[in-house]
């Protein structure tokens, strides 16, 4: 990580801000403050340019035929697989499957692997802090199989401790599916410890890394997760692409769930033999530009280094939390979780969407709603919350403006006039 910037440099660096074109957007007359990074992060120029280059210079299909232009596309596509594997600390690149996103990746594990291993009477453990993408698939699988969905207990920070997971485990537990970082509470799981508890109890461990990949370097070998999923668009990459990492011997056992071009070995009239992983799970034309763009996003993260990004996010989040806490009508549901840049809060007596209207008027983009986690809302006993989510390219001034806007939230009807 020798090439990564130190915090001080990062702070001063206009260069970083220039790399993200969306940072210059003016929203309702104000330079936009984008505090909705946990929904979708901004995309640096290098990623956008790489995709434009694909469409302008070698925008062809991959893995089909042997001409030079097709080889360039195929090569860059497959080189990205290697890059992703390195990024995750995976031992082999063919344990990296490209998907449409985290949701598709988790659904793939569930409908293929889950369907294979879970039987009636088994138990599947999730938490109430899961995003719907890591909750509903398991819930539906349990329902269809006659298995039992079990919710591990959350502590007050919104995470499952290894002890809590241990308590939820029984001899019937077949699989544990938990987030790496929560998208509502920003809680950070000790993935390695949780995976160990699961494995020691004879269960598989699936990790939803949609938020985790952004803020916390994962090593799939050290943590020993069986599956890990994430999306491009949250990691400064494009929409339409995501990754499922799986241990190769597990992938190897999994049947494909989509059928089409490039995933077959031999198609006979009444049956088909399928290619090995990862291609077995990559039917049809892949999101080629998007995979290449994701590779550039990973280059970007590697260039700056997790360390510098993390420090910056924690710093910004801590001052935002401190200033918000000074406002008596603000309730912060996760006052201790700085690492993810996520602040989950409400303003007393003001519907979160009404408050969001004021933030919007002030050019501040954040999110109001259930954040695709109705189970978590139930745990918080809220219909909805506000969520500010910060990235390393945000600034103190932006935090200031955010806090000021919070003070105006009571005038929510003003937006109508």
């Amino acid at each position, binding site marked *: 990580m020798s090439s990564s910037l130190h915090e001080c440099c990062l702070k001063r660096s206009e260069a970083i801000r220039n790399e993200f074109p969306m940072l210059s957007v003016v929203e309702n007359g104000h330079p936009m403050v984008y505090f909705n990074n946990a929904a979708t992060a901004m995309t640096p120029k290098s990623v956008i340019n790489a995709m434009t280059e694909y469409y302008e210079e070698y925008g062809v299909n991959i893995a089909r035929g042997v001409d030079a232009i097709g080889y360039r596309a195929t090569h860059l596509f497959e080189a990205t697989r290697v890059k992703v594997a390195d990024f995750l600390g995976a031992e082999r690149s063919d344990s990296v499957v490209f998907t449409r996103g985290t949701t598709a990746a988790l659904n793939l594990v569930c409908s293929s692997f889950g369907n294979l291993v879970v039987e009636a009477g088994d138990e599947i453990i999730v938490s109430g802090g899961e995003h719907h993408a890591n909750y509903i698939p398991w819930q539906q699988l349990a329902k269809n199989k006659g298995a039992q969905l079990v919710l591990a207990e959350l502590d007050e920070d919104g995470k499952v401790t290894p002890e809590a997971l241990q308590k939820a485990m029984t001899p019937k537990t077949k699989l544990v599916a938990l987030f790496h970082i929560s998208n509502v509470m920003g809680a950070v799981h000790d993935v390695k410890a949780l995976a160990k508890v699961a494995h020691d109890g004879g269960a598989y461990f699936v990790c939803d890394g949609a938020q985790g990949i952004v803020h916390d370097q994962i090593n799939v070998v050290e943590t020993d997760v069986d599956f890990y999923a994430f999306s491009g668009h949250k990691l400064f990459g494009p929409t339409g692409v995501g990754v499922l990492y799986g241990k190769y011997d597990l992938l190897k056992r999994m049947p494909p769930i989509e059928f089409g071009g490039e995933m077959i070995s031999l198609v006979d009239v009444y049956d088909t033999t399928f290619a090995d992983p990862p291609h077995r799970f990559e039917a049809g034309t892949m999101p080629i530009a998007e995979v290449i763009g994701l590779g550039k996003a990973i280059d970007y993260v590697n260039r700056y280094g997790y360390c510098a990004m993390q420090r910056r996010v924690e710093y910004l989040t801590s001052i935002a939390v401190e200033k918000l806490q000074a406002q008596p009508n603000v309730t912060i549901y996760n006052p201790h979780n700085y690492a993810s840049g996520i602040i989950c809060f409400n303003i007393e007596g003001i*519907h979160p*969407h*009404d408050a969001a*209207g004021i933030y919007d008027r002030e050019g501040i983009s954040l999110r*109001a*709603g*259930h954040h695709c986690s109705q189970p978590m809302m139930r745990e918080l006993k809220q*219909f*909805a919350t506000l969520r500010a989510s910060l990235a390393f390219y945000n600034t103190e001034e932006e935090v200031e403006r955010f806090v000021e806007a919070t003070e105006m939230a009571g005038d*929510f*009807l*003003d*937006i*109508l*006039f």
Partner: protein
Amino acid sequence: MSKQRKWQVISLTYSSNQSQKDNSANAQLFKKIIMDHYRNPRNKGLVEDDEYVTIFLRNPSCGDDLTVQVKANGDKIESIRQYGTGCSICCSSASMMSELLASKTLTEAAQLINQFYLMVEAKPYDEEALGDAISLQGVAKLPQRIKCATLGWKACEEALGKIQEEQADDSASK
């Protein structure tokens, strides 16, 4: 302040060229009306009564929901109830709707609902007819909040449709 009077003020303000000051006076009035409906919602709370047609609607863009109950007698609306979790626009709008449409005929109600849709879509509409609801005309410049404002009206529209269906069935089976 009688309803009658409110209408006058409003139509006055909106049929002439207004100064900045008039405008903000107007805004103050409108805000008051909306806040009043938000804080003291009319016809709030549901009833267990088979004579009511009940419609549950969810606003997909935020996840909030609203239930509207309508009871008709012949071609006249007798009572409207409403209950839900929503933002100020949604809740106040539902309250205004319930007040405006109660005791109207089914046809009149349908027309008023349409007038409301026209208003929030920034199209020409009949200001005189909408009562308190014209205080929500600012929604026309917030397209992302149109769904909030119309949720109650949509629910009522669906309820009216159902009532008419039922009435048609009834008279057919007679």
